């Protein structure tokens, strides 16, 4: 589902991502581990076409990074520690806007479904600015899943989540069957509860060399 071959990103003369190759199978949940500045965020930015690589190539959900950016972006959901929401809009308006931006066909029904799923249905008409941080995070999860992306890229998703938001994240993302997940995190001890495999970056390099992660649990439905 995600395939990277020799992906490289330089900033000036510094190598942020250094010839990274890996494969993630459909439905697999993969943790991307590494210290601060190891290149996790840069790698995710490359895979979401926010940055373009200096070398190497990658496909996400069958779409090539360089030539097929628009289709690639349509098949990924992105969730970072920053909620990426409009504070002056209500939760419902936020989701309706993103549904329109992604050309979601059944926008109204999908927005309602997600607002209910993350427990924001009753507060859908309040300005997002007055909602607590936990609600922001839950709404951000709903935004990332809105267009039913087969692949989800997460950057430190568990940082600063309250218990309810963590439960929503686990239910809708980390344990969602069929969804392919690549999540950068530094919470090494939490990883074993959800991840099928681990990719570890150190100074831009993948420690395992070339890694292939299969979906051992979620897709196959069997415990490891």
């Amino acid at each position, binding site marked *: 589902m995600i395939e990277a071959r020799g992906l490289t990103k330089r900033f000036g003369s510094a190598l942020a991502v250094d010839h990274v190759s890996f494969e993630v199978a459909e439905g697999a949940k993969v943790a991307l581990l590494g210290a601060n500045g190891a290149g996790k965020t840069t790698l995710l930015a490359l895979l979401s076409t926010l940055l373009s690589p200096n070398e190497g190539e990658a496909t996400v959900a069958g779409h090539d990074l360089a030539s097929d950016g628009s289709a690639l*972006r349509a098949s*990924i959901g*992105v969730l*970072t520690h920053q909620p*990426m929401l409009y504070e*002056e*809009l209500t939760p419902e308006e936020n989701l309706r806007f993103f549904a329109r*931006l992604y050309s979601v066909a059944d926008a109204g029904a999908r927005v309602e479904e997600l607002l209910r799923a993350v427990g924001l249905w009753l507060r859908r008409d309040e300005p997002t600015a007055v909602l607590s941080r936990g609600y922001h995070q839950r709404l951000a999860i709903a935004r990332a899943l809105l267009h039913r992306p087969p692949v989800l890229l997460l950057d430190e998703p568990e940082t600063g989540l309250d218990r309810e938001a963590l439960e929503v994240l686990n239910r809708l993302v980390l344990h969602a069957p069929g969804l392919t997940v690549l999540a950068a995190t530094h919470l090494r001890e939490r990883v074993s509860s959800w991840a099928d495999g681990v990719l570890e970056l150190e100074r831009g390099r993948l420690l395992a060399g070339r890694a292939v992660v299969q979906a051992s649990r979620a897709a196959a439905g069997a415990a490891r």
Partner: protein
Amino acid sequence: MNATTAVLLKDLRLLWRQRSGWLSAATFAAISVLTYSFALDLATGEVKPLLPGVLWVTFLFAGIIASGRSFAAEAEQGTFDALLVAPAPRTAIYGAKLISNLLALLLIEVAVLVMATILFNTALLSVELIAIMVLGTLGYVSLTTLLSTLGSRVRSREVLIPVLALPLLTPLLIAAVHATGGALDLPTGGEPWLLLLAVFTAWTALGSVLLFPFVAEQ
């Protein structure tokens, strides 16, 4: 096109919710006209020859204040990234910002024209004048919208955007002032000012559309 309307409708809604920002630009425009009246003795002196300059300087400053923020809010809330990871083409995002800025500024400018018509007892709301205004506003808004992508983390960006924009807009200011003067039956030296204004607007709009994807990238 779908993405453009989505972002445009969202921006117009935000414009309404954050109207304090736009009202302050409108208030600034009103105060600016008033200040010129005192400074240049517009109340008693011969108004007409000075009026085009007064109007366009007011439009330019109000426009830079107002449209300078169009991408800053997105960058601060992190929503700019959300737009960029959506499948929408970057040009669509720019187009939506451009249109929403243009609409808001035209509103302010019409208000200024009405105010000036009353204050200086000069008929300013003619079709010709409005056309010049729309053309000139499109020209400077396309540039200031592009320049407003200057990252919100850059120090003193509020000062920097006018410093960058105004020298580039020299031809627009000159052409717009004289075209407006022509519409008010002032001597303009016979140069095709309206054509210059149209050419300048066409190239800033085109150049901005072509170059926006480069500044939008991280």
